[in-house]
Structure formats: structure tokens, C-alpha cells
């Protein structure tokens, strides 16, 4: 009797938790992920300014970041399910 009530209570708690997660946590998490991506994009843009046609005063100093940033971009579009991305010369 007690065990049955306990199981019911636990199930109710779980669904409540799920509800809370979907309603509040998930959008918050998505927002944070969006923010993380935005920050990465800003860095990529700053380092690869000349690819956008803008002069970059520290282009030479940041040469060794470029392979890593392109690799990040590659990993990202693969995760998104695209085998290829952009024009040749952007990624692959």
C-alpha cells in the first residue's frame, strides 16, 4: 500500500520535473547555447576579417588560430548534418 503510493508520488514528481525542464530549463539552455555560438562566431569573424574584405591589423599575429577556427566550423556543420558547407575556400 505504502510502496504503491510511493511509486505514484515518484511518477508524479518525475512528470512535474519533465514539465519544468521543458518549460523553463530547455529554453534557458538553448539561449545559453545560442550565446556560446554567437561568441564563437564573433571570434571567428574577428580573426578572419580579411576573408570578409576588412583589413585586420593583427592578421599576421593570429595566423596560427586559423586552422583551429576552420576545424571548429567544420565540426559544427558536420554536427548539424551537412557534409559540405559553404563555397570551397570557406570550409569544405
Amino acid at each position, binding site marked *: 500500500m505504502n510502496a504503491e503510493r510511493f511509486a505514484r508520488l515518484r511518477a508524479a514528481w518525475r512528470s512535474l520535473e519533465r514539465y519544468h525542464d521543458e518549460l523553463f530549463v530547455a529554453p534557458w*539552455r538553448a539561449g*545559453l*547555447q545560442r*550565446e*556560446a555560438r554567437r*561568441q*564563437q562566431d*564573433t*571570434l571567428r569573424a*574577428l*580573426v*578572419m*576579417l*580579411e*576573408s570578409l574584405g576588412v*583589413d*585586420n*591589423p*593583427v*592578421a*599576421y*599575429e*593570429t*595566423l*596560427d*588560430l*586559423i*586552422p*583551429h*577556427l*576552420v*576545424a571548429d566550423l*567544420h565540426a559544427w556543420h558536420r554536427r548539424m548534418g551537412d557534409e559540405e558547407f559553404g563555397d*570551397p*575556400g*570557406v*570550409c*569544405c
Partner: protein
Amino acid sequence: MTPPTLRFLGGKGGVGKTTLAAAVGLLESRRGLRTLVVSTDPAHSLGDVLSCDLGDEPRQLPGGLWAAELSGEIQARRRVEQVAHDAADAVPREVMPAVRQHLQRAADSPGTVESALLDRLTELIEQVPRHWDRLVVDSAPTGHMLRLLQLPDLLRPWIEGLARQRERARGADRMVAGMLGRSDDEPDPLLQRLHQRRDRMQRLAHRLRSDAAVHLVLLPERLAWAETVRAADALAAAGLRLGAPVVNRVVPPDESGLLAQRREQQDAVLAQVRHRFAADAVVEVPLLGGELVGATELGELVALLDRAGW
């Protein structure tokens, strides 16, 4: 004051910086100091003055002096190759063509040759005092030299800004990773590289302030003097040490006719030079008959600098 281990010779084009740099180099090397003299002017003439073929790699001349003509283009190419080579092991093969294109675009951007030249100079400066006792730099004309010497201070805030941006991105990333139960605490290669770059710039700026002296070279003419004053002010503002200035091609006092007239004009300039650089001994190099080319012909100039206490 301890003698500077890094000497820069600066001034307008055609005032004799290269000849003086060669003479300073010869003087130091004759004292038994391991001395390297380098030219950073894209229009190199150091090889002509020392009458030998010079390239980007230092080579030793018969008298013991080492010399090189530095090239920003070669250094930029070398670095692009190095980065591409390192990347080949670190990133997926299919993105390498794109990496190469991005690298090329970055290497072609304006300012790269300048930065590359400074990078090469930094390599050499970091070899002092391990490999060299003295480094003598025959700089490009004034504006160029000023920019080269100020570059570390101009670039550092940029690199720091990028590092901060990267830290923010990493922070946001880690927060997401933490919530999803992943841990992501490996050191970040990008951040490490940015910090390495920043530290290198910082070391260079420090070395330039503590171990370098800039000797301005000028002709005793009013226009040359006006530019020298501007350069001296800019260098002092950047915290760089000004060495003894060199006034080149001074007409001797016992001349007559046209040269005597020149002498009067140059006396006015010389008075101003002595006034401005009162603390340092101004070096006056007399107008010499022949052209100074080759180590033997430079002997007279070397002796003069020696007497002036260099």
C-alpha cells in the same frame, strides 16, 4: 649607463644610415663582440656597403662581422608554411584547402609584411645575448622605423581583446557543457597561442625599452633637422632611449667658397642639435672625399666612432 646591446640607426632616406650601421657593426666586432648587423629597409643596400651578397640568413664576413638583409615577405611565407604544416596534423584533411586559402588571404592583408619583419627582428632580438653580444639594425626611413618600434604597443591591445573574446566564448561553452553533464576542462590551444603571442609582444616592448638605443642620423640641413626633432619626440614619447645622434657630411671649417656658405647654414643646425641633445655627445662625421664602400674604406668611419666613445 650600460652600452645598449641593440642599436637602431634611423633617419631620412639617403643620410647614410646603412654606412653608419655597417661601421658600428665593424667597430663592435673588432672589439671581439659577436655582432650582427641587419637591414630592415625593403630597398636593401647593406650588402652594397659591405660589398658582399647578403640574404635573410645571417652570414659571416671575412672580418668576423655577421650581416643579413631581412625580408618581411620571406618571413610571412615561412610562417604560413609553418602554420599549414602544423595544422596538417591537427585538423581534418578535407578542410586543409580552405585553411590554406584563409591563411593566404590573411598573409596578403596590408600590414602583414611589416608585422612579419618585426617578427623576424624579434627572433633575432631574442638571440641576444645568447648568440649575439650586439645587434645593429639599419632601419628603413624614419616613419617606417617609428612604426616598427611602436608596433608591439599597437598590436598588444588587439591580441588581448581577441583573447578576452575567446575566454568569453569558452566560458559560455563550458556552462552549457556543465549543464549537459560533460566536462570540458582541457587547455584551449587557441587561448594558449593568443597568450603566447601577447607575451612575446610584451617581452619585445620591454627589451626595446631596456636594451635598445635609437641613433638618429641626419644631414646638417634645416629640413632634415625638423624631421629629426619629430622623430626624437615620437621615440621619447614611446619610452625608447635616444642614443647619440650622428650628423653626417659636415663641411670642415677651413673650406672656402660655396662650401663655406654651406658651413654657415650647417652651424645654425649644429647649434640646435647640440642644444636638443645636450646630454649626449653629438657625433659629427665630416664630408669625405670618396664613397664609403667596403670594409677597408669604412675604417676611417669606424675609427671616428671609436674616438667618439661608441
